[in-house]
């Protein structure tokens, strides 16, 4: 009966910390996959922290957006989840990469490398001359 709240909350945080960039559409999934690849099984909070650390705290990640992304990856079969216990013995849901997820990571990483390389050529001043 009531309308859904709109998606505003996604971008609120950027007002506060204007020196940080928002996560770009579509890149979060790749970051999650890469994080799980390098760290092994990890819970949601751990993934979020790790992504922030890896980005050198340049990235402003709204932790709430992580969970739908994790669900999507799980539905697509790239990751699997399991309940377990954290280091300080707290019950948490752990995610780990599946074989399909590893392949997907390779594919997407390659795509990104290619995309960024192309973009870099466009954007760098000497790119036009060669």
């Amino acid at each position, binding site marked *: 009966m*009531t309308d859904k709240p709109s998606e505003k909350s996604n971008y*609120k945080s950027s007002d506060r910390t204007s020196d940080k960039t928002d996560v770009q559409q579509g890149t979060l999934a790749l970051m999650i996959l890469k994080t799980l690849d390098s760290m092994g099984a990890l819970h949601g909070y751990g993934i979020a922290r790790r992504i922030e650390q890896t980005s050198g705290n340049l990235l402003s990640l709204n932790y709430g957006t992580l969970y739908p992304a994790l669900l999507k990856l799980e539905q697509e079969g790239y990751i699997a989840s399991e309940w377990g216990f954290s280091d300080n013995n707290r019950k948490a*849901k752990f995610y780990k990469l599946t074989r399909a997820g590893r392949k997907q990571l390779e594919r997407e990483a390659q795509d990104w490398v290619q995309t960024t390389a192309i973009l870099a050529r466009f954007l760098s001043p000497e790119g036009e001359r060669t």
Partner: protein
Amino acid sequence: MRALRAWFLRFGGLFARKRRDSELDEELDSHLHLHIEDNLQRGMTPAEARRQALIKLGGVEQTKERYRDRRGIPFLETLLQDIRFALRMLRKSPGFTAVAVLTLALGIGANTAIFTLVDALYFKPLPVNYPQQLMRVYARVPSRSYNEGFSDPEFKFLRDHASSFGALSAETQVAQLHVVTTSDSAELRGAFVSANYFSLLGVEPRLGRAFLPSEDVAPGRDAVAVVSNQFWKTHLASNPTVVGAEIHINRIPFKIIGVAPPNFYGDIAGMPAQVWVPTSMLGACGYACSDGTYRCIVYDGLVGRLVPGRSPAAAQAELRSLMVWSATDWLNRTPRQVVAMPANGVDPDQRAESDAQMQLLASVTASLLLIVCANLAGLLLSRGLARRKEIAVRLSLGASRSRIVRQLFTESLILAVIAGILGLWFSIWARDVLSGFYATDSEGFHHLYDLSLDWRVLAYSISIALLAGIFFGLLPAIRTSRQDLVTELKGGSCAEHSGNWLRHGLVIAQVALSMTLLVSAGLLIRSGLAIERGTNFDPGHMALLRLRPELIKYTPPQVESLIHRVMQAVQMMPGVQSAAFMEGGEGLVWNWQNGHELTVSVPGENQITPASGLRVQDVNATFFATLRIPILQGRAFTEQDNAAAPRVAIVNDAFAQGIWPHASAVGQMLLIARRSYQVVGVVANIQPSSTLQAASPHLYLSYWQSNATQNGDIRMAIRVAGDPSRELSRIRHIVQSVDPIVPIGEEMTMSEQLGLEYMPVLLGRSVMIFCGFLALVLSAIGVYSIFAFAVRARTREIGVRMALGAEPADVLRMIVLRGVEVSCLGVVIGAFGAVGAARFTRSLIFGVTANDSWTLLAVGLLLILVALLACYIPARRAMKVDPMVALRHE
């Protein structure tokens, strides 16, 4: 693949939501705790640690909401929610739901049942290989709408030269073959076909083989037959070793070479063949010259398989440009034109009639569905007004209008879908009733239409259900969602007038359409009665049968002796009042031999025979008395009007009026086939003519003065004291005791024959009565519902009126007058509609004029009376309004 898997899981996410929700709660809870612990380690106060963790998460509820959107399918979830809500609303008003679902289901069921017929008559593919490649080819006379046929050289020319067809087979269906097996005999429909017929269709016999090419080259040589599966079961006891056995067809011994597979009955819908014989046997069986040539053979039509890639239109164009018509003994009179059409559906000679029939039935049931929809739209509008407080509350709580429309519309679609399912079930039941009208043709041969459900019927019923749902649901949904919130929530009641014109308009439309349907139904009821009663003859207590000694090659003296002996024996039977006979032709009373075969003229004047329309029949002395046809002038034939006596003729009233308008017909002379006849009597016109055609002129000749014995085809009409259907078997017994081998067919009562002959009228009548009755009930519901609603909505106003001194009778009058107004308007509009609709029903109307004012008047009064009753009930409730209660109510 991944996306599909994800969608599948999301679909699964629609279920077990509680468990999934609690799991998410737990996960977020653990997330927060981990974060808080981290923050505490960094030295934050517990309150600050919690606050920061929550800020970083971006709100627990928002996260959950986004998570849920991803988990399930939001659109589907809203839909499921709407459906659940709609079902709850429908359950809350079971009366409305029952009326809506039931009427809609009846409407959908009627439409689906008619479509089942249309499907069987036009769309069902033949049960053969690649049926879409099959074409039927006819030679038609353009000016007249009937099929003339091909001669043998014409067929062979096309077969050898047409490049459009991979194979072409000739076919002639014969309705009455006399087939004798070792155990019994039967009159049945068979087909003479070319040797390649079965291989062309791709039909393999279940036993034995099909024809060899060599079996269709020498006239009269190869007496071989393939029998149908049904014939094999009923007449050959399903004998597995039947191949090679002998049966007699029209007294010629044939060898059975094969049994057709089950469900194969030839290539013409509705006309199942039981026996197939090579065309070379046409002459030997008595359907062409018996001189051992193909000279006077006429093929009804051809069946061909298109070469791949060739369109039907191109095939027809090729045949037309190719065709060289050659004269034959029978076919040298009229120019013909090749017509090629896809081979499914009914035979083209019947197509015009069934087109008209189906158009009529489909428009009748469509009108019924329209009335149902109008009725439901009206009910929903009233319901919407009754629910306006609820909707106002929802709008003010922030629901968007489109959301409300969607929700209300879902309710209508759910009604439509439930009704669609129920309607499909009704249609199966209705189909069994309808198929009764298509069981046999007017000569008593079995029709066979495949009326089974197929995807076309299913798709049709689903689409009309959804269409109806949109039709009756959308307008009320939009209307209901448009509200003035402030007035509504303040409890203002001016809204009861909103949409008044719309609801009244819907009821007027319903009454008008009902009027149209009921008038047509009334006319068809009267036509049916006129047909069953008979005009100027008495069809009650008549038993009919047809003797065909020609099929067993009786000579004229043998025929004559047979007739005398049979008549004597039948007249001696107890219970038989009188018996008559006449020369065969098609049908006892209606489809006479066409008079255009004879030249008839009045001496000294030009030939008077109309090209068609004159009917000639050879009848015996007791014919008029047995059928109880009144003799207007002169006398009937007597036993003395035999070959030795002067030739005499009897004409009907239409003939006499047409030729001798100013003089008595009795005593006049006629030249018939260059012989002179004296008119000795004038009888009444017996054909119950439709209002379209004037009674046609009939000419009766004495049986013994014609050469009818040559034809050896005799129809008998026997008037009995008791139930004629019970006498039929006794009569057969008597005839067989006189002559055990003479073929007996078309045994039925005259009422049965009339029913079959006028099947379109009787079928139309049944459908019309059903639809008309339902329309009447719906109109009553429609009128009742708007007045019941009006009374409820105007309780306060009525209370004020009564407090100011209005009498209950005034209140009653106020409401009833409004009802009369609405129904009268509907009736008047409907009367115009009925006059317009008569255009379509005219060919089915007998014995009354299509604009019969009595029917109009009676139906109009009936509708107004029903409308009065329907608004009297709410009006009485209005009379009982207590002013004090009504005013305190606010």
